[in-house]
C-alpha cells in the first residue's frame, strides 16, 4: 500500500492552485484533507501525475453567512464547529467517517470527490446548494443537482478548483431530516435519505443506492414507498438489491417523519 510515484505542488494562493491545475490538466488531483484521496493513492486506485496541495491557501478557510446560506471554503474541515450553525450539517456530519477523519477531511473535498454513498453531497443536493468553481477563465456557480454527474464524476472541468460550497439555511417554518443505515459507526451508508418539509412542500433526496445523490419526486402520502419504486439498487456483499430497496423505504420514511416533525414545531 504505497502510492505510485507522483509530483507534489504546494499552492500558497488560489491563483497558484488554479495555475497548477490548468498547467497539469487531467493529470492533476487536488489534495485537501486527503481522507479519500490518500487511501486511493495508497491502493493505487488513482495515479495522478501531480498533487496540488491547497491546505496552505489561507483565503479558502472561511465559513460565512451570505444571502441566507452558509458559504464554506475549500479547506474547512468537517470537524469545524462553525458548520454546526447549519441544522442539516449538524445532523449529518456525525455520520461522516470518524472523529479523526473529520479532523482532516474537508466539506468541499467530500463534495468534489462525489462518492454517491457520502453524506455531504446528498445534503447539498437536498438543500439546493451550489458549488463555486474557479478556473483560469474565472469563477462559476454550479447548482448541486448539475454538479454531481455519476459515481466519482462531477461537472468540474479540468483545471477547475472547488473554492467554496454554499448551503442554504432553511427558514423557520422548514424542517429537515436525515437518516442512514450503515453496518458500523462511520461506515459508508448502505442507504441514506434526507428530507425537507415546509407546509405542503416535501423534498426528498437519496444516496448510496443511486449513482449520485438524487432528488426524488415522492408521493407525500407514501414517501418511502414511492421513493423505493423509483430506484434500482445494485446488491453488494453486505446487502441484496431487495434489502436495499426496502431500506430506501425505511430511511425515506424516517427522514420525512423527522423533517415534518421539525417543520411543525
Amino acid at each position, binding site marked *: *500500500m*504505497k502510492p*505510485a*510515484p507522483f509530483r507534489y505542488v504546494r499552492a500558497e494562493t488560489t491563483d497558484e492552485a488554479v495555475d497548477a491545475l490548468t498547467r497539469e490538466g487531467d493529470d492533476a488531483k487536488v489534495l485537501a484533507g486527503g481522507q479519500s484521496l490518500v487511501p486511493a493513492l495508497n*491502493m*493505487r486506485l488513482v495515479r495522478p501525475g501531480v498533487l496540488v496541495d491547497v491546505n496552505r491557501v489561507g483565503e479558502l478557510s472561511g465559513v460565512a453567512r451570505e444571502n441566507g446560506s452558509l458559504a464554506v471554503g475549500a479547506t474547512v474541515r468537517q470537524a469545524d464547529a462553525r458548520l454546526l450553525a447549519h441544522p442539516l450539517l449538524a445532523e449529518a456530519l456525525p455520520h461522516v467517517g*470518524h472523529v479523526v477523519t473529520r479532523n482532516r477531511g474537508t466539506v468541499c473535498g467530500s463534495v468534489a470527490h462525489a462518492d454517491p454513498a457520502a453524506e455531504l453531497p446528498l445534503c447539498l443536493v437536498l438543500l439546493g446548494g451550489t458549488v463555486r468553481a474557479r478556473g483560469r477563465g474565472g469563477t462559476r456557480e454550479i447548482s448541486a443537482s448539475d454538479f454531481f454527474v455519476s459515481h466519482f464524476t462531477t461537472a468540474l472541468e479540468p483545471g477547475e478548483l472547488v473554492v467554496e460550497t454554499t448551503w442554504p439555511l432553511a427558514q423557520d417554518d422548514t424542517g429537515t431530516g436525515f437518516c442512514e*443505515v450503515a*453496518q*458500523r*459507526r*462511520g*461506515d*459508508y451508508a*448502505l442507504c441514506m435519505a434526507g428530507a425537507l418539509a415546509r407546509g405542503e412542500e416535501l423534498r426528498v433526496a437519496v444516496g448510496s443506492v443511486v449513482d449520485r445523490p438524487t432528488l426524488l419526486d415522492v408521493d407525500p402520502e407514501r414517501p418511502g414507498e414511492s421513493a423505493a419504486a423509483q430506484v434500482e439498487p445494485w446488491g453488494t*456483499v*453486505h*446487502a*441484496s438489491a*431487495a*434489502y436495499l430497496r*426496502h*431500506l430506501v423505504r*425505511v430511511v425515506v420514511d424516517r427522514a420525512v417523519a423527522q423533517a415534518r416533525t421539525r417543520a411543525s414545531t
Partner: protein
Amino acid sequence: MAEDALELVDVEYEPLEPVVDLLAAAEGDACVSDRSFAYGDVDAALAAADVVVRHRVRFHRWSCTPVECYGVVAQWNEAEESLTAWANFQGPFTLHSVAAAALGLPGARLRLVTPPDSGGSFGIKSAVFAYVVLMGLASRKLGVPVRWIEDRLEHLAGSSAATGRSTQVEAGFTTDGELVALRYDAVEDVGAYVRAPEPATLYRMHGSLSGGYRVRNVAARNRVVLTNTVPSGLNRGFGGPQLYLALERTMDVAAGRLELDPAELRRRNLVRADDFPYETPSGALYDSGDYEGCLDDALAHAGWDARRAEATAARAGGRLVGVGMACVVEPSISNMGYITLAEPSAERGLPKSGNAEGCTITVSPLGGITVTLTTTPQGQGHRTVAAQIVADRLGVEPQDVTVLSESDTSTSPWTVSSGNYSSRFSGVGAGAVAVAAERLAERMAAIREHLGDPDASLRRVAGTAHWNPESLPPGMDAGLAVTAYYAAPNLLPPDGDRVASSAAHGFVVDVAVVEVDRDTGRVSVLDYVTVHDAGRLLNPLLAEGQVRGGLAHGAAAALFERLVWDDDGNLLTASFMDYSCPTAPDLPTPRIGHRESPSPFLPLGAKGLGEGPTMSAPAAIANAVADALGRDDVDPPFTPGRVWELLER
C-alpha cells in the same frame, strides 16, 4: 520500491475450477482427513432417547485484525550458514522447528528474535513463521538482509483466518431434559492447505466435546476439507466458537422442544460441583469448578426471569426482543499431543504431551532482579504479573523486579511449546515464574541461614553469592540465578482416541439481551452479562481486560466480521471498507462477574481466561437472536442485511 517492481511482473495463470464452499469441498476430492470418534454407545442412547433434536449450524470464517500486520527482517550469515530473523511472531512454539526444517537448518542455526511486545495478535501472528522462511530464503539468495512489512490488504487476503465449520448435531434427551447422547458431524474448512498447526482447530476442543454437561455418550465425525481460500490458523477462541455454536444452539433448540427454560435445561445437565476433578468421555480432566454457581450468578446478574418476561411482553407488542445464554467450558494450556488425534492411533509416532514453559531469574551483584520470559506477550500484561509473582516470593516490591519479554531462541529459556496461545500464561507461563522464584527464594534462605543472618538483605545475599562463593553453603552454585521449566502435571499423551487436551478448564456463563430492528434488520445488544470462573485471578484488572477483549472478538464474529469470497474465489471483503471490524462504540459493554475455583493442578491455581467470551458470545448472541425472531435457522454473523433476509424468509 517493491510495489513498483511488482507491477513489472506479469504472471499468466491457467485457471482451474475453484472450490470455495466447504460442503462442496466435502462432496469432492478435497477432503484430506476423515476421522470418527465414539465414546459410550451413542447409537443405543439415541435410539432409547425420548426426544432427539437435530440441528445444523454453520460458522463463517473471520480474522483477527491486529493494528499492525506482519513484519520480518531476515539476515543470512553465509560464513556460519545460519539465519537470524526478527519477527513479531508469537512463538517459538512448534513452528520454530517447522521453519527450521523448511530451511533445512539445524534448529540452532535459526535464531528467531521477537520483540518485548509483539503487538496485537489474537492468534494470527503465529502464521508469521511462513514469512520467516520466505524472507530467509530471499536473504540467502540475495546475500543481504531482507525486510518485509505486510500491509493491510495482504494481511486480509493472505495471512490467516479462523476455520469455517458446518456442524450437524444430533442430541438425545429424556422427557425431563437429561442429555443422554450427543453426536457431531463436522466439516472443517482449513482453506488452501493444511498449514501447521492445523487441523488443530478441530482437536483443541476435543476433550470438551460434551461442553459443561454430564452426557457420557458422545460421538464425532471430523472431516477436514480444503478450499481455494486463505489457509486457516490460530484465532482467539480457536475451535471454541465453532464447537459451542453447535452445542449451545442445540441446547436452546432442545429447550424449545422440551418446553423447558433454557437455563433450567442446562442446570439439569451441568457437571456438579462435587464431581470435580471430572473426566469427560473424550478424555479431558476438568480440574475444578462450580458450574451451577456460575449459572446462578449469571441468572441473578442478568435478571434472567425478568428479562425473559420483558422480552415476551415486548414481542407481544410487536418488538423483536430476545434473551439468550451460553454455558461454555474454557480450556486453557493446550497439550500439544492433542493434534495427533488427527491420525489414527497406530500412525501417530512417538507420544506427545508438550506444554512446558521456561523462566530465568537472575540477581545481579548489587541485588537487581531480572526475570526473562519466553511467553511473547501481545499486551496481556505478562511482565506485570511476572513481577508480582517474583516480588511476592522474594519479599520485594514489584517495581524492584525487571522483566524482559523479548525472546531469542539462542538465549531465552524455551521449549517446543513456548509462546503465546491457548491462554497458557497464567497456568504454565506464570507457573514457571513461580517455580523459578520459589527455588531462588529457597537458595536465598539457605544462604541467609549459612551466613547465620536470617535478616541479611537481598544485596548482602547477592553480594555473597557473587563476590565470595567460598562462603556459600556446601555444594551450592556460585552466582545467583535460576532457570526453571514448568509443565502441567495432568497432561498425558493421547490414550487411543481419548485426550486430556488442556491442563485447566474455566467456566463461562453469558447472557445476552438483543433487539432486532424489524425495519432494518439491525441487531442491538441491550445487555450483556458474562460470569467467569478462571480459578485464582492473578491480577483483577488484567483479567477484566481479557474478558473485554475476548468478548470484543466474539461479538465481532457474531455481529460484524465475515470473510467472503465469490464463486471464483475472489475475496470480496479485502479491505476494512468491507471487512467490518467493529470499533469500540459498536460493541456491547459487558457486566462482568467472577468466581474463583482454584485449579488443584497448577502452582498458582490460576487458569487461562483470554478466550472465554470469544467462545461463548457467538452462541449466546445467536440464541438471543433466535429467541427474538422465534426461529431456529439462524447463523452468524447477524449483520443487518443477513437478518433482514431472515425476516423476509
